């Protein structure tokens, strides 16, 4: 389970920007359903909390957590 343990911030980012967000009808959106996100495991791996702090350094989200 060590692979699955790695936080996948870039992977999360990409899955969010590809298939979340408001849905528009019509042909303006390309098909994205078949993307295999597993390849992203090889990329940027950052701990979730570290990344949260990185994204917003002034507001630590877990003041006591570690």
């Amino acid at each position: 389970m060590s692979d699955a343990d790695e936080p996948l911030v870039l992977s999360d980012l990409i899955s969010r920007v590809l298939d979340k967000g408001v849905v528009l009808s019509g042909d303006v959106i390309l098909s994205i359903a078949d993307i295999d996100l597993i390849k992203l495991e090889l990329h940027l791996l950052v701990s979730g909390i570290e990344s949260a702090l990185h994204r917003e350094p002034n507001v630590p989200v877990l003041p006591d957590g570690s």
Partner: protein
Amino acid sequence: MFYVYGIVPKALTGAPEGLDGTAVSLVPVGDLKALVSELPDAQYDSATVEARLADIDWLSPRAIAHDAVVSWASDRGGVVPFPMWVLFKDRPSLESGLAPRVGEFHQALDRVTPGREYSVRVFAFKDRVAALSPAVAQLESEIEKATPGQRYLLERKLDALRQTEAREVSASVSRSIHEDLSRHALGAITEPAPKAAAAAILNAAYLVSREAPEPFQAKLTDLIHTFEPMGFRFEFTGPWPPYHFVGR
């Protein structure tokens, strides 16, 4: 091609660079504005983009740029994020494509503006979690007293029991964490974990008040202190733009 990142209130001005370092302009759409970059037709027609989507080295910087524009807006107030690759061939088709949706965009903005999105994922270390089960403890003590002959069968039974108990304990912990966090959030959603995190027992997004995130933070910290010593591990990211709370 006109690439749209999302919809923002009319008052928003300025904008960071977008895909490929292009300028992002704020194009009026009804009484709202769209965050828009103009991209070269030849590189961004549907067929070309679709062909390159699986190329992670091509996709990654563009996904990061898309998120950066939407996050910039989210840091300043409400935004209705679009998924990547909302492309219009010209300004008139952009305006006529988006204008009929203005009412819907307003509703979405009203819903998400008070909050920001945080993602929580929980994993279980199966053996430690199974050890929490009284049934497992009971069987373990039986095995200690068993004769060598009985022991083999009991140990196989124990393996199976550990599996099912770990699943049950995980499911109930997952439910309870989600209920607790949902109570301190403006919105909550669970979804199946992506392949790369398939072992997650909870994969959830929460819309948390931007004015008062402390109760959510305190509850999450509490839960981590309670459950990590029992064999659960938390992953946490955010703040994200409200990707999970504007549609679908």
